[in-house]
């Protein structure tokens, strides 16, 4: 585990938790990014404004990272374009079919002790691990 960075991960996790908690306590909303994206792409009255603002916030935060913590964008692994296209479509499609991603199910749902979210999170981590095993150990890294 030569890249083990538990403290940075914990601090980042706490910030994510604080952000999601603010959305819950102040606005009563679940900070699930895939649902927020879907809400912006398929607008419904009264629900699109705050979702678009949250996305704008993610992008603004991204710009701040680019200036103050460029290391955040040292991607390390970037797959070929064809693989990225497939991966992106799977992420978009899968999160909508399963009603959530790492934030909605993995953080908000698990914290609410939702069985659905616990099962979904265990499933996407297992599926992700199986995919990485196939790519890294059977497919030679797909470079």
């Amino acid at each position, binding site marked *: 585990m030569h890249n083990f960075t538990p403290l*940075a991960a914990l601090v980042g996790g706490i910030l994510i938790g604080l952000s999601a908690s603010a959305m819950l306590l102040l606005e009563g909303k679940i900070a699930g990014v895939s649902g927020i994206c879907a809400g912006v792409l398929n607008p419904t009255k009264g629900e699109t404004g705050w979702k678009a603002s949250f996305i704008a*916030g993610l992008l603004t935060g991204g710009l701040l990272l680019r200036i103050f913590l460029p290391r955040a964008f040292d991607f390390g692994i970037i797959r070929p374009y064809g693989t990225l296209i497939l991966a992106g479509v799977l992420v*978009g499609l*899968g999160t909508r079919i399963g009603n959530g991603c790492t934030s909605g199910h993995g953080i908000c749902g698990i914290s609410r002790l939702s069985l659905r979210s616990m099962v979904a999170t265990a499933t996407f981590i297992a599926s992700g691990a199986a995919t990485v095993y196939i790519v890294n150990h059977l497919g030679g890294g797909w470079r």
Partner: protein
Amino acid sequence: MKAGVISLLAGIVFALGLGISGMTQPSKVVGFLDFAGAWDASLAFVMIGAIGVYFVAFRITRNMRAPLLAPQFAIPQRTDLDARLILGAVIFGAGWGLGGFCPGPAITALASGALPLVVFVASMAAGIYLHARWQTVGKSRPAALAIATADS
């Protein structure tokens, strides 16, 4: 208007958390998912930190009738397990392991201006859009059939 400002600020803090934690780096994500290789457990600590805070926040809401600045809570109420949940999670996990990005970090990393991120986020948006189209087709099909039957 106020909700927009709070969402914007929450989005900024969320993105900073993702960046600091390592979630915006596919090498960290793939390292976390690589149980058979040089496993990097870091991202488990992201979940511990975030869940620790949100668990407390959710407990607090149990004693609140409404959120502080909105008329009501919009919290999912479903408790059933269905095939769609599992299928969706399997598909999402495959994409996550393949690309190393989930939705939040991908949008945040779009700010890097790197072309691969533009491609990934556009593909993700296409996947979301595709799903919405399928939903519409699925819903409108019975109506179309009814019209066809009425015509004949």
